[in-house]
């Protein structure tokens, strides 16, 4: 099966289908994940999260377009966007409070809850 896929790569590249969108979302997801893990700054972590959510939306929309998932994919994407907004708002409010209190936004320095 592997041999079959490699032979058709040039022709595959020509017309972007479902798989291409999935690959882009995969890349976006990994980068978001990378950001969440490696960055010490809380806001960077938030950005990472936003990237991950977008990757997810791309998948939903791609499936609605290419596969059997009807318009519901769009609706889910919509709700994801709504929630992302709410989440970003609250997150930032928290971050500001932390910043106010601890004057730092680095994740590993905020460790008062940990003994």
């Amino acid at each position, binding site marked *: *099966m592997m041999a079959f*896929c490699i032979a058709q790569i040039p022709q595959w590249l020509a*017309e*972007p289908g*479902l*798989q*291409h969108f*999935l*690959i*882009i979302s*995969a*890349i*976006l*997801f*990994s*980068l*978001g*994940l*990378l*950001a969440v*893990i*490696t*960055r*010490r*700054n809380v*806001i*960077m972590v938030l*950005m990472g999260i*936003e*990237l991950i959510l*977008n990757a997810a*939306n*791309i998948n939903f*929309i*791609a499936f609605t*377009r*290419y*596969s059997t998932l009807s*318009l*519901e994919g*769009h*609706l889910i994407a*919509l*709700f994801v*966007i*709504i*929630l*992302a*907004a709410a*989440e*970003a*708002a*609250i997150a*930032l409010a928290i971050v*500001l*409070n932390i*910043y*106010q209190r601890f004057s730092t*936004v*680095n994740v590993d320095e905020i460790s008062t809850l940990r003994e």
Partner: protein
Amino acid sequence: MDLYAIFFYFFGLLTVASAFVVVFARNIVHSAFALMFTFFGVAALYVLLYADFIAVTQLLVYVGGILVLIIFGVMLTTKVFSVEVKTGTLNVLPATLFTAIIAGMLIFVFYVTDWNIIPDQEWDTTVYGIGALLVNDFILPMQVAGVLLLVAMIGAVMMAARERSKS
């Protein structure tokens, strides 16, 4: 290579590149701005996928709302002098390794599985479909989303108010 492919590769590349910048930028302000481009790229992809209403919402909410919030966040928390803008990283090596493996896995899976592709169909605007679904099948999530947003707002306001009383 029809037009569709060209647009796809262009916007795809845009999104991925800006995502790279977001992640690997030393300066947090640069990554914030790079984020904007990422959102635009994504919205473009939605258009390519005939999801017009979602593309617009994307633009409105993400670029208009969330991005602005993040930038506020950045600006408020990075005193140009005390907190150096450069953000540090921790245990980078294992994280990048694992993320690369995850990406490889996902790409491999997406590439290998033969999806259930349905033949093309005529796409026209999806707004009416979305609207009908919203008020018929998804009426409960709609309301809950509404309540949620309200709660989020009150929460944000509460935290902000407490800030002033303390300082």
